């Protein structure tokens, strides 16, 4: 399925704010409830932070990509990179809560690689309780 939104940007901490705002625009168009948007933003922020902190070696420039789509009351967000993949890291500077947090906020989480072998975190968020609709065109 072709995503409704694809955002590619440099994997830098300050760029996560751009991702969060893009998700806000996406949520506005699909009338995603504010509480659900907060969960989505937090989960995607964690996934992007993992890319920024872990995907690329120190000083190595790298890209991250965020793809979002909406289908049948379910929002899918994929965060991917072209770095060294998801692996244990004893010297991790973080608390190690990111993936647990994502798992708690999303309906499903898949870690792995896309069809082109890029590292990918795929999250789905159900909006079934309050069905999304395009602004001005829905119920």
């Amino acid at each position, binding site marked *: 399925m072709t995503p409704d*939104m694809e955002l590619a940007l440099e994997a830098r901490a300050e760029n996560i704010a*751009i991702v969060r705002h893009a998700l806000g625009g996406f949520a506005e168009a699909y009338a995603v409830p504010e509480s659900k948007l907060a969960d989505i933003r937090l989960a995607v922020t964690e996934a992007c932070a993992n890319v920024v902190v872990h995907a690329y070696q120190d000083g190595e420039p790298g890209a991250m990509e965020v793809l979002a789509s909406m289908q049948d009351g379910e929002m899918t967000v994929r965060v991917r990179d072209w770095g060294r993949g998801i692996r244990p890291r004893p010297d991790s500077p973080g608390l190690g809560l990111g993936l647990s947090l994502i798992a708690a906020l999303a309906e499903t989480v898949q870690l792995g690689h896309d069809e082109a072998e890029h590292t990918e975190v795929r999250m789905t968020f159900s909006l079934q309780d309050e069905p999304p609709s395009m602004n001005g065109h829905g119920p």
Partner: protein
Amino acid sequence: MNGVATSERERATEGVTRLRLADGPLLRPVLCRVVSMVLTRADWPLDRLEDALLVCDALCAHRDESSDGKRLTFSIDADEHEAELRVCELTPESAERLVGQARLPLVGNVLERVAERVTVGPGQAGGGAQLAIVLSGR
């Protein structure tokens, strides 16, 4: 679906933000927010930020006649002095049309009034055309 092309991914590592959106209600809210954030981070003053959003509004308002009705691709590159917003993967005709449709009675062409430069050129990788809009941050 392979997402953004490799050359564009390389551009992302050079600080260029690349955005590809389904045509429709998604276009305006996402494009305006992303452009706002990129320019805010580049320390642009509020009045110039408003001008940039006016350009985004004009592009979104006329995209129906100029896109293939499925996807629109943008790239945004900014520093404190200048920003370049490109609308990529257009045909030469649709790129020219997008500029022409930004003309308003008594105002003139909004894009050309607000931007430093508006140019239609060949697309990257030799395919199609792109519209490049350069704005000044001061």
